[in-house]
């Protein structure tokens, strides 16, 4: 737990400048890694940021008017985030647990369960601090960083694939400087790119594995090889890697998972997993099986919408529900629960989109087998026992903006007409909203009692998982280390 200043003063100030100042003082205490850089750049940045801020406030107003725009429109609010809410570092600090128990008493915004995690604002700060080296960053990396940070590329495998494809471009344009060799310099060069990429979101396990592999490949390239040949070799290796570890693995998984789907099956899935989507489409379009897919979705990314849209447009029978109705939907006789994975940890825990654990637990409770489809590139040798130690915090505003958007639709009008305030608060997934209006939540940073935490992942214990399907076979969660051993020896 990091020690932070009490922020009772800042909470009153609506002017961003003062927030900024106070923040620069307290950022020393909250962060260790990034603060030296940011402190040096502070005066410059503040001006720049203020300008940007005004611009983005305008944008935000515009965005707020848009009623039903999907994830895409959330980009703008996110960017606003960049500057406005450094204070968030402290205010995020309330744990969700505390909120759940609705004991949001007078707790200063410190000592949080999640305060050790890097926040979105944090990462934005980092990316700004790296702006001096931006000329070293390959344009395609910048574009990828933007795409990832705006969630237009989501999912472990799509991100990994996009990254590798970008690396192909980067390597293609790379020239070894005088007086050094490709083997030595390219690794460094890539590291800079990767550091920048990290400012979008933390790397996924699959990306980490791919990077480790790539660096290994670079290091064993012969020094005598000229630049062009070396680059060609690397590029073809990356292409093979994508084919072997991502595309073919997916195919094998699809093949072996298809055995589980038969006519009349009812399958429940959560969010939007790339490989699961392909499995469903394959069984529907190629194998012509008749089955129903229940897609459970959740705030704030609503990835399931995309899946529901794609599957239903192909004629598949879809039921789309939100995670709130989980216990109701399990009244149905569901045959299997299929889950995607962000990563499989070596103690058999599944690290996946937040909500997966809930579903797996419910499925276990109803005696429905939970199957995880996961490429072996997602296997991690890490051991993690809870989802607090390592996790990813996303933009807290995403939770609010969904509320804002909904506020414009009929339900909100209804609420306004009838002046029933409490409904609004449940709508925003907040227990404590006092009697304030929904709009006021966007001011949550000024309220020291209100903490909004947007956690991205959770951990599902192996007891809830029946089977993991990988391209090297199906196995119980207890056998994950085996795959790791075999996989490591093969690459």
């Amino acid at each position, binding site marked *: 737990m990091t020690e932070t200043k009490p922020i009772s003063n800042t909470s009153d100030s609506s002017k961003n400048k003062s927030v900024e100042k106070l923040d620069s003082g307290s950022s020393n205490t909250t962060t260790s890694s990034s603060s030296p850089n940011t402190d040096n750049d502070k005066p410059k940045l503040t001006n720049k940021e203020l300008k940007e801020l005004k611009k983005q406030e305008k944008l935000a107003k515009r965005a707020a008017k848009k009623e039903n725009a999907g994830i895409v429109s959330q980009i703008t609010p996110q960017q606003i985030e960049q500057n406005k809410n450094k204070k968030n570092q402290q205010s995020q600090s309330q744990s969700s647990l505390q909120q759940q128990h609705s004991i949001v008493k007078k707790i200063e915004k410190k000592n949080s369960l999640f305060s050790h995690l890097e926040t979105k604002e944090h990462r934005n700060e980092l990316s700004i601090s790296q702006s001096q080296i931006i000329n070293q960053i390959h344009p395609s990396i910048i574009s990828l960083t933007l795409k990832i940070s705006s969630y237009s590329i989501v999912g472990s495998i799509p991100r990994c694939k996009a990254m590798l494809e970008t690396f192909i471009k980067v390597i293609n344009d790379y020239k070894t400087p005088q007086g050094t060799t490709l083997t030595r310099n390219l690794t460094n060069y890539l590291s800079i790119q990767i550091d920048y990429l990290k400012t979008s979101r933390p790397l996924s396990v699959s990306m980490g594995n791919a990077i480790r592999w790539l660096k290994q490949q670079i290091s064993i390239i012969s020094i005598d090889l000229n630049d062009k040949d070396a680059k060609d070799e690397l590029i073809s290796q990356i292409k093979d890697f994508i084919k072997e570890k991502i595309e073919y693995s997916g195919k094998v998984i699809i093949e072996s998972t298809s055995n589980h789907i038969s006519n009349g099956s009812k399958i429940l899935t959560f969010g939007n997993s790339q490989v699961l989507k392909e499995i469903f489409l394959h069984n529907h379009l190629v194998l012509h099986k008749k089955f129903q897919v229940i897609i459970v979705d959740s705030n704030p990314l609503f990835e399931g919408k995309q899946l529901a849209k794609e599957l239903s447009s192909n004629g598949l029978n879809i039921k789309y529900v939100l995670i709130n109705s989980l216990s109701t939907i399990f009244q149905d006789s569901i045959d299997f629960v299929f889950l995607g994975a962000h990563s499989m940890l070596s103690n058999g825990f599944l690290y996946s989109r937040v909500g997966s654990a809930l579903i797996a637990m419910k499925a276990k409770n109803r005696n429905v*087998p939970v*199957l995880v489809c996961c490429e072996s590139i997602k296997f991690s040798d890490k051991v993690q026992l809870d989802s607090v130690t390592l996790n990813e915090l996303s933009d807290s505003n995403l939770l609010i903006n969904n509320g804002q958007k909904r506020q414009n639709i009929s339900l909100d009008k209804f609420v306004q007409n009838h002046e029933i305030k409490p409904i609004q608060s449940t709508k925003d997934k907040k227990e404590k909203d006092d009697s304030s209006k929904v709009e006021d939540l966007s001011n949550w940073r000024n309220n020291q009692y209100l903490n909004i935490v947007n956690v991205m992942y959770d951990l599902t214990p192996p007891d809830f998982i029946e089977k993991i399907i990988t391209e*090297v076979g199906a196995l119980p969660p207890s056998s994950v280390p085996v795959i790791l051993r075999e996989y490591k020896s093969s690459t």
Partner: protein
Amino acid sequence: MSDFDIKKSYLQFLEEDTEMTMPIAAIESLVTLLKIKQPSTSTELIKLLQDATETLKNSIPNAISLSAGCDLFMRFVLRNTHLYQDYESCRRHLVENGQLFLERSKESRRKIAETGYKFISDDDIILVHSFSRTVSTLLAHAAAKKVRFRVIVTEARPTLQGEAMAKILRSHNIPVSVIVDSAVGYVINKVDKVLVGAEGVAESGGIINHVGSYQIGVLAKSSNKPLYVVAESHKFVRMFPLSPDNIPTDENIFHFSSDLNHETKSPIIDFTPHEYITALITDLGVLTPSAVSEELIKMWYD
């Protein structure tokens, strides 16, 4: 398959040697097929084996442990064909090694008895389900080592193989009591250990065995009695049932009928998930259920 009937030879092997298990008989008939057919290219050889395996699997009901043998041999063939430059030596090698394979497999039961008898101590009451050669070998070995123990054998409906088991054990001077399957819950409190064989060991470490094994597993677990599976490693199959009834058999288990004289029908095998199994006593040593998938992955991805 005009001049050689794989099914016939398979059944013949089983009949001639009562000590032979199904996967071994399958391997032996495949080796015999290779000897007779003399395929001239490796593609032909693989095709031949694939066809024969397919025929065999389709013609025999309850083909689970049989397919373990076929798959194992197939894997062995695929791994070895590319090692040889000329095809003829490869084929010879296969036939020779196939033979070796058989001998080793037969040997494995003795090895299991050697490692397994230490699990049985004086004054034990051991519950045994149905008939199993590996279990009877192990118990006989323990009796020969002067361990004094008693055995409860289940009758094992619908095949009633428990009677055969009791007979074998009694012939080794082991005191045996035969109970009906439904009495397992009654005796489980008095039992110290449960031993079962297996027709196939799944990737999860769960076992496919004579019907009734699952309920014994559940009872054993609920009263904290260790359940040991005694099985040779060639019974490891690459399959992963999710529930006790999730076994690929084409027969329909349920025969609902309001006919008063409708005969009782029952499945013959069931699947016991790995959480009910304490350990597997195999020729590779004593394994935990999760070590099975390790062995299988090693076998298939070397």
